[in-house]
């Protein structure tokens, strides 16, 4: 570095330019960006949730310019909306069903007027009236993709036992992985308790006892864990690298592994598991709410869009007629035998505050143990 040569002259120029820029900074900062314009729609969503072809067609058909901001988890979306307060920079967000109460509680979402959405009936009926989708008699979003907490195993090394037992087996020492908060719920269910806290309304003592039981069980079996993870890409890579042989995972990322031909199998053990649904939601005080409705309507209008979403994300589509469009491999990776489907309970939106409080606390304790 000592050898790179600048003349004093260029140093002066540099300094002058920066000084000018520095003085102009307030002006640059103040130039109001265009979040609220008549023909714009701002969406915050995951990469590959909205198919590119569909997006292009929508923009061409309606003349609306769509801006997409990509996120990679729910927490960031929530934090961003919270920090923005009453003047959101986004119109549509992608919230997972059981996080509704948190977003609604903080006044971040507007209820969805389903009467304005002509294609609402293309949803599989079970999703149209799902109880987690409605709070206070209002509907809060358009379900687009459904996933579940699955048991994933490397078929070369681990036999199918049909039970979550395999996560605690001595044979799998240092060979398992899970998302602590999610797996805590599953463990509670495995131990015979209510992992979703729906029946614990006004019974904090019972809830705490059940939580502690599962917590202690997980701490007792901590030697089986290779790593606690957070993101889908992590568990994918751990399976590929054979750092873990069996894990709790979200169906989407695991299905993608199967679609790519890795020796991974996905199942719902007999003790059951939980499911969750991604939904598109209109933001409270959205600057372009009308365009948001047009977009939501268009998403629901064609099963092709749903199929593209499934192909890209690995999650199951919530729209009728999508399965027929997928090819055999895609269908196999993203759908389950009927008896296993019945073991899935969708996360509720009841009693979230108690659940979140206790689960977050236990998660910290398990990690610290």
């Amino acid at each position, binding site marked *: 570095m000592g050898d790179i040569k600048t003349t004093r002259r260029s140093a002066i120029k540099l300094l002058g330019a920066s000084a000018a820029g520095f003085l102009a900074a307030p002006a640059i900062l103040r130039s109001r960006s265009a979040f609220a314009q008549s023909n714009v729609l701002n969406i915050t969503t995951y990469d590959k949730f909205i198919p590119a072809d569909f997006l292009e067609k929508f923009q061409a058909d309606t003349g609306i310019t769509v801006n997409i901001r*990509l996120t990679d988890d729910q927490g960031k979306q929530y934090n961003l909306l919270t920090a923005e307060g009453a003047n959101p920079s986004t119109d549509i967000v992608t919230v997972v069903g059981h996080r509704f109460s948190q977003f609604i509680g903080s006044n971040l979402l507007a209820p969805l007027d389903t009467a304005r959405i002509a294609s609402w009936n293309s949803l599989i009926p079970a999703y149209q009236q799902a109880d987690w989708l409605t709070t206070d008699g209002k509907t809060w979003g358009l379900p687009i993709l459904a996933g579940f907490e699955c048991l994933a195993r490397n078929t070369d090394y681990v036999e199918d036992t049909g039970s979550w037992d395999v996560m605690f087996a001595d044979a799998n020492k240092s060979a398992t992985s899970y998302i602590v908060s999610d797996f805590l719920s599953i463990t509670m269910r495995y131990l015979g308790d209510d992992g979703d806290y729906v029946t614990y309304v006004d019974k904090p003592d019972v809830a705490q006892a059940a939580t502690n039981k599962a917590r202690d069980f997980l701490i007792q079996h901590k030697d089986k864990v290779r790593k606690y993870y957070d993101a889908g890409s992590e568990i994918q890579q751990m399976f590929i690298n054979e750092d873990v042989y069996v894990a709790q995972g979200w169906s989407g990322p695991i299905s993608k592994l199967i679609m790519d031909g890795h020796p991974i199998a996905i199942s719902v053990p007999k003790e059951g598991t939980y499911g969750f649904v991604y939904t598109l939601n209109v933001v409270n005080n959205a600057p372009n709410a009308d365009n948001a409705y047009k977009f939501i309507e268009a998403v629901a209008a064609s099963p092709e869009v749903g199929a593209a979403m499934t192909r890209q994300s690995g999650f199951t589509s919530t729209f009728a007629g999508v399965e027929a469009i997928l090819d055999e491999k895609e269908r196999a990776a993203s759908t389950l035998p009927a008896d296993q489907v019945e073991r899935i309970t969708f996360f509720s939106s009841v009693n979230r505050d108690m659940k979140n409080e206790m689960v977050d606390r236990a998660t910290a304790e398990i990690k610290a143990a």
Partner: protein
Amino acid sequence: MAAARPLDGPKAALSAAYWVFVLYLLGPLLLMTAMSFKAAEFIAFPIGETTLDWYAKVVHDGQFLSAVGYSILIAAATTLFATVIGTWIALVVSAESLWLRSLVFALACLPAVVPGMIQAISVRIFIATLDVPTGTGAIIFGHTLHAVPFVMIMALTRLRTMPGSLVDAARDLGADPVVAFLRVTLPYLKPALYGGMIFCALLSIDDFVRTFFLGGYRTTLPMLIFARLQGGMSPEINAMATLVLLTTAVVGLYAEQLTRKARTR
């Protein structure tokens, strides 16, 4: 200037240390580059079938190209502002007579210590209370304030050993304070400032969380990579990184070649 010959004996050992370190830095990245040719959705050993498709895809990916451009724009602006401000703060802190020195120094260091996400959130709330909108300006502001302490510490290290007599001599020769600064202090600081500028550019180009909270709907490279990672670590992301690395290497070598020529002329 002849090469020094201190520590003659251990010279070979030092040379070995350098090359082992180079291997440590480059080895893993060579793996990444190798993975970018893999013909599969995910990266894994063995590489097996190879393809150039990922590169073709990346080169034609408008989102990637515009993200790179936007990242460079932000990094350049950040480097400019942070270098000026950081150097200025260093000068103030190094002024002997100022009793507030230690406080200013500690406050100037603050942004280097706050974990990224917390800084991002607090800056986001802060600019909201000032009614400043998010967007390019806000990103540059966030990146600049993160980079300033790095420049300042680099500049201070060098300023501390600067003989005061240099500036005095310049003043005796009739230079006013500004000219004395530009002619004496700034050139003396040069190596440290280059280091500081590299930090600025790196911190800015690699920043995800501040950009996410302060940005609008234009994607920077780290944001794009984080979002793509959601679908799995595919060779496509490796191809992107390889292209970025190759470009920096070529630009770096070219600049080095230019300065070398300028010096020999």
